[in-house]
């Protein structure tokens, strides 16, 4: 950074260095590598967006820069895994889950290689970058692929815990990550188990089942509504596949209504997964799916989009209140 510039001016790499929350991926992988796990990492020209530049600096021999060739990265990661390493490859969710969908199915999931795919800046978090950079389809797409675990952490600490848990997890994993500077729901070292939802509370009137970034606003909304006298609960469904059917059924048996909240199309994602359980198992609760309503998002700065699509605390609260009325 040129020293004569005003301190409010910034360029990309400098800015990212100032964002410690961005470094969860890199820090945790460094920790795992230092602990002796055979982790390696790679990206497709986005090492500053996902913070892997930190890992690359610490362990250059464990890092591969693939350039803008995402499909090659995924297939190569699968090939690499056969030599006994655990590759963590990261790029924007749209360029991972969508652009590499077939490579993920074939080379990673079908070949059962322990690749960890990290799709970051998912949902509409890329704001005014628009549709090409949004990913409101990735849960549906990844969930349709057999033998692939799909995880959508709510915040940095949970992501870190999931990464730690991933080193000896048998299946390939798709992680769906937001921007890396999301408000935190959990304290560091909160236990994490793949496939086991975190039941914050169950509500008699309503239980919110949320995944990823929306867990935080959903919790805020829950508290506000509780203060108003409603019995509202919250389940953090961080693992979308395999889905914690028992947790869904607990909610279905306790609550009059279930509201799923996701930064994703309401078709085929978390809401779809919950609907499948409810429609098959019954239980009586009515389901409402909240998210992007099968449309391409407008553009705007991310927080404006969250407000517009009612994925901030107020939006979730209002959506829930409308059901409770």
């Amino acid at each position, binding site marked *: *950074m*040129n020293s004569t*510039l*005003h*301190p*409010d*001016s*910034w*360029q*990309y*790499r*400098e*800015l990212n260095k100032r964002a410690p929350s961005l470094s969860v991926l890199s820090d945790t992988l460094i920790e795992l590598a230092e602990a002796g796990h055979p982790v390696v990492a790679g*990206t497709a*020209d*986005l*090492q*500053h*967006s996902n913070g892997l*530049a930190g890992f690359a600096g610490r362990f250059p021999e464990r890092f591969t*820069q693939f*350039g*803008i*060739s995402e*499909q*090659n990265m995924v297939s190569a990661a699968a090939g690499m895994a056969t030599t006994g390493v655990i590759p963590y490859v990261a790029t924007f969710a*749209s*360029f991972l889950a969508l*652009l590499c969908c077939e490579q993920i199915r074939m080379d990673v999931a079908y070949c059962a290689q322990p690749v960890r795919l990290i799709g970051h800046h998912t949902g509409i978090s890329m*704001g*005014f*970058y*628009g*549709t*090409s*950079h949004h990913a409101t389809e990735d849960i549906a797409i990844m969930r349709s692929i057999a033998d692939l675990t799909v995880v959508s952490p709510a915040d940095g600490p949970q992501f870190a815990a999931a990464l730690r848990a991933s080193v000896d997890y048998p299946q390939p994993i798709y992680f769906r990550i937001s921007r890396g500077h999301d408000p935190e729901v959990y304290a560091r070292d909160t236990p994490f188990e793949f496939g086991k939802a975190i039941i914050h509370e169950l509500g008699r009137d309503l239980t919110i089942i949320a995944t990823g970034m929306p867990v935080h606003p959903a919790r805020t909304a829950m508290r506000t509504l509780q203060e108003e006298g409603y019995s509202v609960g919250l389940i953090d469904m961080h693992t979308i596949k395999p889905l914690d059917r028992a947790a869904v059924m607990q909610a279905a048996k306790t609550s009059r209504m279930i509201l799923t909240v996701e930064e994703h199309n309401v078709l085929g994602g978390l809401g779809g997964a919950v609907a499948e359980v409810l429609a098959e198992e019954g239980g009586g609760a009515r389901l409402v799916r909240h998210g992007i309503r099968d449309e391409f998002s*407008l*553009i*705007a*700065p991310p927080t*404006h*989009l969250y407000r*517009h699509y009612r994925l901030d605390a107020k939006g979730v609260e209002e959506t829930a209140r409308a059901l409770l009325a």
Partner: protein
Amino acid sequence: MEPTGATSWPRNVSDPGPVTPQEAERLRERACFVRLETIRLISIAKVGHYSSVFSCAEIFSTLYYDTMNIRRGEPGWPGRDRFLMGKGHAAVGQFPVLADLDFFDKAWLDDYTRLGSPLGDHPDMRKVPGVDFSSGSIGHALSNGVGMALGARFRKQDFDVFVLLGDGEMQEGQVWEAALSAATHRLGRLVAIVDRNGYQLDGSVDDIAAVEPLADKWRAFGWVVHEVDGHDVVALANLLRRIKADRTRSQPCCIIARTVKGKGIDYMETEPGWHLGYLAPEDERRARETILAGADAANAEVAGNGIASAVMTSEGTA
């Protein structure tokens, strides 16, 4: 019909002759306009791709104000030449040009990236008149261009398709699928321009991937290759005029435009981290001054030296 020169088409395309000093000055001025407007729009967005635009500002100005057959105020005119942006993240520099050509209301620019605006980080054909195809995912545009050229051939429509590609974009396999396809189908009306600015998001293109020998790659894929200084509007415009004037083109051609990423602002030219960034108002003001001063100097220098722009053309069909 219009004084900007943008709508001086159709002119005698079979032999437009070389660019005059007045035309060149005008193109430089429009490149300067692109840079200044980019700075203004990014001040609204509070983040943007200055340096990706600065490397292709002269390409924008030459294409839109000299090369392309377009009609002011008629973004949907079927006979227009098409322009596609493989490096869609430079749209912030394209939008001011489209507004300047009366393709949409200039007031739209003032809401750049605000909720509901048609104008975001990438060009969007669904929302922005004058955008010939949407982009944002690097690597698709040359295929889109292949399709347009194929469609035009079948429909007997008479236009050229220009596709601006990043040099980092050369790493996307789909570009080479499209390159092969274009050569196979002998799409002579397709022109790719590679903005060879040497940098991509994570650093130097050549450190990240062995894209050199780039001209050999395109040639081996069946394209005619030209190399040019991408900031030299005279060289660029003359090359593009010759290409357009050549009605015998039977193969697609690729122009490798050697450019400087961040051209015009010293710290952007030297620091790849400026792929994305933000200038505080004070720095923004200084950047404007630098750009204006640079443009004056360029015009003065050229006026002194005469027009001495070099264009290297291989395979000599254009």
